[in-house]
């Protein structure tokens, strides 16, 4: 039992929200009892010391992101809360199956869209809506990427409502970020809370880079052994640069920038100190519209002219494949369950949130009448931008969105505000743990052998009391995510 000096002694769950670690009556969930006792064995003051140690370690390891607005190139650490989020073995097994199924179906969908478009002819999803996506690139139709894989890495955001059921909030099939924090956060947990990680029997996450490297090589245009794979970054001033270099370093690959690459005879080469060297696989962390000025933005000085020709000729693997954005468009999201049924003839394992698509008249009428109750999202924005949180919005904000939705209905969808689940979170100013809302981004790696799900993921937490927004750009932080090993293994 927690004693009065323990970290969780007076922890209060939030009424109406599912708490990840504690039941409504304040008892540790049975699967986590040992781990919670171990973490909670510290007093508030002792935990404060551990938290400070963790933050110092992150700074000295240079686990930082750049702040764009700051000319001096200031770097900040992504705020980190040392209290872990835990997931029980059987819950994870369910999530894992659901994610693999979803990625498989989305793979089929993309392959079909950029190929025969059977799903559109069969009217299983509305063609006008799909082809109106800003991220549908008709010029890529007919290209089949080497190895046949398009979604090499997916980040699929999950949330839990008051019933405790995990649901998909959105899919990220272009350049999902954040996995480096998953690995770094674990290093910190092991360093600062070693006995807790041990007692809890946490599944390791550090296999991710080697699994990803294997998956990338498995879809190379040449033999895996002869493959030269690289990571492409926009450069050190990109906010996610730490992650780009982290992945290159842990995969043992070279980190390149566009200017290092050039195309000749529809093959890609890298400038090296020993002359040009052929490149076969590029894990790109650049936006696809900046990949190749020949195809996307003739006005752009960025990118590698001709790289898309090399890709189309099958001389280069791009991960993720260009064009994936059409499948993670928020207006296509409501149809993913239909997509799963269409291609796999299975029921979707993971549920998702009921969504109104403003492009459909019936939905739009409902949304415009209920703006004050709904969350309205722009289909092509991320990071918590372009969003209306109806229940918390001022009437001016609501009227603004009314005009926007009426003017460009294809650009918006709406969902009910979900009472996101909570997790105990260290609150520095109060010297104790309080309930804060969280989500989860698991990562799926997909090579020639199909999807593999990293046991863990990035738990993002809304550090501000009462907030629902977990994005790092808007007051969010992260936690280590402990997926526990099954009993008896």
């Amino acid at each position, binding site marked *: 039992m927690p004693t009065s000096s323990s970290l969780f002694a007076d922890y209060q769950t939030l009424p109406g929200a599912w708490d990840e670690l504690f039941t409504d009556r304040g008892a540790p969930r049975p699967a986590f009892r040992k781990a919670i006792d171990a973490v909670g064995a510290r007093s508030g003051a002792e935990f404060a010391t551990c938290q400070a140690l963790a933050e110092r370690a992150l*700074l*000295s*390891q*240079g686990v930082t992101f750049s702040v764009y607005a700051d000319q001096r190139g200031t770097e900040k650490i992504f705020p980190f809360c040392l209290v872990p989020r835990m997931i029980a073995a059987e819950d994870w097994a369910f999530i894992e199956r659901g994610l693999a199924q979803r990625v498989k179906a989305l793979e089929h969908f993309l392959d079909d869209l950029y190929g025969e478009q059977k799903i559109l002819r069969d009217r299983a999803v509305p063609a006008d809506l799909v082809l109106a996506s800003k991220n549908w690139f008709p010029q890529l139709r007919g290209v089949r990427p080497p190895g046949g894989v398009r979604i090499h890495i997916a980040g699929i955001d999950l949330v839990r409502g008051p019933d405790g059921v995990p649901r998909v909030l959105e899919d990220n099939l272009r350049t999902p970020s954040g996995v480096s924090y998953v690995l770094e956060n674990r290093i910190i947990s092991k360093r600062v809370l070693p006995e807790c990680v041990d007692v809890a029997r946490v599944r390791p996450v550090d296999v991710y880079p080697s699994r990803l490297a294997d998956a990338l090589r498995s879809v190379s245009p040449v033999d895996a052994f002869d493959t*030269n794979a690289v*990571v492409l970054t926009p*450069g*050190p001033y990109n906010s996610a*640069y*730490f992650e780009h*270099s*982290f992945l*290159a*370093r842990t995969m043992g*690959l*070279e*980190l*390149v*920038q566009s*200017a*290092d690459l*050039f195309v*000749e*005879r529809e*093959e890609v*080469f*890298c*400038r*090296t*100190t*020993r*002359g*040009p*060297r*052929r490149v076969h696989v590029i894990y790109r962390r650049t936006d696809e519209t900046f990949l190749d000025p020949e195809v996307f933005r003739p006005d752009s000085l960025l990118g590698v002219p001709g790289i898309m020709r090399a890709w189309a000729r099958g001389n280069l693997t791009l991960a993720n494949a260009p064009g994936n954005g059409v499948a993670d468009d928020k207006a296509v999201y409501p149809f993913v369950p239909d997509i799963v049924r269409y291609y796999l003839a299975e029921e979707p394992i993971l549920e998702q949130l009921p969504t109104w698509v403003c492009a459909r008249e019936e939905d739009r009428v409902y949304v415009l009448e209920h703006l004050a109750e709904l969350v309205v999202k722009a289909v092509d924005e991320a990071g918590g931008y372009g969003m209306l949180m109806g229940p918390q919005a001022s009437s001016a904000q609501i009227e603004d969105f009314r005009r926007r939705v009426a003017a460009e209905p294809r650009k918006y969808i709406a969902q009910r505000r979900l009472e996101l689940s909570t997790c105990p979170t260290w609150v520095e100013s109060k010297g104790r743990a309080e309930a804060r809302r969280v989500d989860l981004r698991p990562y799926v790696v997909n090579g020639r052998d199909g999807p593999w799900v990293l046991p863990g993921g990035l738990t993002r937490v809304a550090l501000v009391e009462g907030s629902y927004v977990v994005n790092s750009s808007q007051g969010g932080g992260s936690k280590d995510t402990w997926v526990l090993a099954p009993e008896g293994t």
Partner: protein
Amino acid sequence: MISRVADHCFWLGRYLERAESTARVLGVTRNLALDAGLNPRHVWLPVIIVAGEEEPFQRRLGAGAAEDGERVQEYLTWEEDNPCSIKRSLAAARDNARSIREVVSLETWEALNALYLWAGSGRARAEWRDDRHSFYRRIRTSAQSLQGIARGTMLHDDALHFIFLGVLLERAGQTARILDVHHHAFRSLGAHDVVETALWLALLRACSGFEPFMKQLRGRVSPDAVARFLVFEPLFPRSVRFSLRAAAGRLERIRPPAEEELPGTESYARLRALALWVASRQKDFDTAGLHELLTRVVDETTEIASVMGRELLGCAPAVASQAATQ
């Protein structure tokens, strides 16, 4: 290795060595100013000249500022607008490392990042204020440890070779500049022998050459012997000759001379020629020719760095028709 990455390695090495060298010179000069009884201007102006900062320094702080050791030290340690200040050099070394974090070892990165964070902290300022000697010593030993950490934790492949190529070229240039400026200044002083000997000993200390010199020459201090030692001593790791020969050795491993089809022909040929030329001058060396020799070393190392930039470090377009088969 990617040319841009090689460029970052090279400059990481150069800036690190530059920070160390500046700390070394400031520490020793300060010590000298305390007991040699010289006009402060004769002590501090050469330091500004060695850094190549005479013009901007005087423009910003006035001609008289070179008499004020504190202002010279402030300028060369902290000044954000001085690209040679210790603070800026460390930031530049760290920026280069940050651009190639996947290339330098984790230990190297963490040690460099820690040094950079420390230099930007109030603790560093406080140490500079309260214990100047230990401040300079810390910069020097941290930079030296960093080279040791890199050597002890990184693959001994091209990345490490480029880092040390940068270190060694910078060192050859720094030793040449320090010697040239001081030699000139001491000569024009017409000072008493005892004082002049003290100056030469200080110069040796600035190059970490005091004890090695005493061991090799058994205490016979003369301007000529010190100059010879700093230029020619084949066993002293900071002499011009040693640095150039070691730099050529690094380049040989990056680009073996036998593999003629690889880029780097001119860089290697010129570096090797310079190293051999310096060695060949030892016989019948006359200090009257010192300035001419050192000027050639400084100019030619600058020139070689720019040829390397073109041939190896990605400052020129490449075409695949030159591709080695891989």
